[in-house]
């Protein structure tokens, strides 16, 4: 949810009102972010991002080199090459395209390249389906990327710009994926406010600046990039003697991500008057709630609507939207959930033979608490199946009744599927 501030540095009347869909909003954000290289391949529901960006290129509105690659694998590969050369690189994809990128996602993270990737979340084949779920994003959760999920078109714009700031922060230096729900956000028009170009440039500190590293064969620290003045080698062969140590770098970097995401969220708030919870989690009416529902992405809006309705009816319900899925905010989320009687965990994806991805995380988060809520996993919305308010209201009533009974019969529930 967008929380308004009274005096942002750039008041709302100085921000430009645009009526755009989520994909266009992301393209606008990338345009204003002084991106050097965009390498992308069309795939529904992401395509509008690259179409819109191509227009900016064709009209000379950006300095960006647009590389219309022959596959998503090459899109991410070109981004790795560009980012290693010191450029700010951006790409966008969805579903099967993200799956094709998978190999290179790990490489981008391991080489510590702050690439930003917009994912217009879509179901994975087969059967081929172009509509929204989160199974594509969940396939990359272990790749070493920061994963942010947005709720609306405004947030898609805001988060894409923030993503560059987070990725390039020297405490982080990891690639960031901005997830927006396919069609529900990618193709839905909303009125949004965008900043003047210069404000975005200033927020990001201009063009990308590369960090420095120390290697034995140079006396001084040198830029971590492909630099003919100070040659470094990227992507060596590690044996068992060093690979583990290099993975620890990623472990440590991930630990520093939440503070940076919070800081950036706060700075954005001061600049624009908009913030999204603390940047990591967006709780609503959780303080005295018996039943709390957790959710990712655009469904958050519908869940909030139901929470409001049930609160008016005197029901003690609340919700938390998980904005940052990787790194997962185990402790912070557990602190919010621990006093509830029942927590309903909504997942728009399933790990076949197990549960939904965020359900597993939340179990891990709560395990160490002596007093903890009952947990129910709701898998919903696969392949773009709608999650209308009535369905979500039914879910809350189930959870309220579980809370009353004090036990849960069926831990894994499928919402909105025909038997």
């Amino acid at each position: 949810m967008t929380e308004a501030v009274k005096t942002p540095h750039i008041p709302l009347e100085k921000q430009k009102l645009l009526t755009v869909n989520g994909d266009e909003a992301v393209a606008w954000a990338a345009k204003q972010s002084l991106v050097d290289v965009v390498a992308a391949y069309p795939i529904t529901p992401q395509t509008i991002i690259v179409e819109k960006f191509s227009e900016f290129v064709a009209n000379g509105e950006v300095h960006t080199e647009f590389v219309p690659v022959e596959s998503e694998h090459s899109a991410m590969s070109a981004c790795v090459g560009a980012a290693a050369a010191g450029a700010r690189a951006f790409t966008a994809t969805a579903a099967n395209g993200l799956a094709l990128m998978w190999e290179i996602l790990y490489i981008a993270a391991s080489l510590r390249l702050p690439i930003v990737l917009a994912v217009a979340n879509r179901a994975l084949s087969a059967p081929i389906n172009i509509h929204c779920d989160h199974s594509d994003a969940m396939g990359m959760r272990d790749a070493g990327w920061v994963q942010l999920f947005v709720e609306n078109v405004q947030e898609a714009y805001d988060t894409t710009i923030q993503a560059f700031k987070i990725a390039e922060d020297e405490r982080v230096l990891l690639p960031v994926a901005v997830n927006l729900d396919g069609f529900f956000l990618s193709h839905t028009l909303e009125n949004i406010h965008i900043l003047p170009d210069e404000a975005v440039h200033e927020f990001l500190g201009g063009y990308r600046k590369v960090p420095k590293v120390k290697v034995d064969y140079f006396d001084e620290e040198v830029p971590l990039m492909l630099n003919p003045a100070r040659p470094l080698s990227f992507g060596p062969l590690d044996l068992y003697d060093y690979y583990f140590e290099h993975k620890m770098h990623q472990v440590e970097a991930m630990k520093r991500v939440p503070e940076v995401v919070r800081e950036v969220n706060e700075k954005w708030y001061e600049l624009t008057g908009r913030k999204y919870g603390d940047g990591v989690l967006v709780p609503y009416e959780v303080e005295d709630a018996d039943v709390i529902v957790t959710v990712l992405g655009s469904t958050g809006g519908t869940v909030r609507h139901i929470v409001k309705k049930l609160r008016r009816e005197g029901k003690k319900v609340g919700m938390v939207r998980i904005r940052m899925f990787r790194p997962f905010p185990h402790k912070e989320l557990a602190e919010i959930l621990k006093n509830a009687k029942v927590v309903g965990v909504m997942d728009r994806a399933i790990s076949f033979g197990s549960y939904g991805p965020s359900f597993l995380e939340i179990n891990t988060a709560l395990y160490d608490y002596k007093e903890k809520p009952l947990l129910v996993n709701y898998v919903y919305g696969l392949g773009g199946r709608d999650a209308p308010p009535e369905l979500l209201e039914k879910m809350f009533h189930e959870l309220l009744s579980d809370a009353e009974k004090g036990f849960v019969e069926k831990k894994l529930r499928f919402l909105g599927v025909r038997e």
Partner: protein
Amino acid sequence: MAQQTLPQIPIKKGEPAYKLWIFEPEWKGELPLILNPRQLAEQKRAAILPGHRLCAGCAAPIIVKLASFAFRGPTIVVNATGCLEVATTIFPYTSWAVPWIHNAFENAAATASGVESAIKAFKKTGRLPWDHVDVVVFGGDGGTFDIGLQSLSGAAERGHDFLYILYDNEAYMNTGIQRSGGTPKYAWTTTSPVGSVLPGKTQHKKPIADIMVAHRIPYVATATPAHWLDLMKKVRKGIEVNGPAFIHALSSCDRGWRHDTALAIEVSRRAVDTCYFPLWEWTPEKGYMLTDRSLSIARNPKLKQPIERFLEVQGRFKHLLRPENRHLLRDLQEWVDKVWEDLLNRAVNAPR
């Protein structure tokens, strides 16, 4: 130990044998293409450093070394996964005296697209401190004929300015000699073994350089390390053209070809002498042109040697020299002759 202080390029007389290539931001000009061997030894240092762990007698570092003598200035090297990549950058060591990146196996050309695009973006915004930064890719046959072909074709079609040098050792040597699209017919490999029914690989080598010609990129050539002057000249041309260039360099592998470690150059020479691997270059303006020894053979066909001369020093073909396999040998000879004949018909400088 390569020296720690930052050396100048070109190398001055009396400087250490190994050094990093340092192009300070104010560096201007173009490195000379030196073709005199004595001057080369006195003025050039390879972009690949010793201490790499390629097998004794491997041709790949010879190709890299010769190619680097033809680099014209600041250069970024992109490497596909393969022998060259793993053996030159075993952490914590690197053998690269120039900036170098390995991304994955199938994406060297796409990675180069990104590097080249970054250079363009920097240039456009006044952030490139040199006139040019060249991008040179090294990929093996697996990374080029097979798994990397889509990425290479895409990058060629998009017209990125880079030189792709295929070092073709005719099989997946890094994983232990498995057949590739670059393996010649009847060659033994560990996945095309010579058995009681099958005589090694049963398909011909993919005509990769002709496939690149079909893209009508500005420059395509073949080369071997034995014909080192020819190779250096071609590398410089490939770097100088605006747009994609491709050089198919034959790169013998003593482990996989089963020959003595001293024969890398000898066997490459024989590949050309038998017309198994003709030397040529192609440009959209002129078409096919024979070069070096292959031009001599075209002018004096008596110089052309039978295919046995290429096969006889290699264990991977030893079954072809057995009397019962004479028909296979004939088949291979006919194929070589046909391809050579086709080339003679296409080459604008072949005698008519």
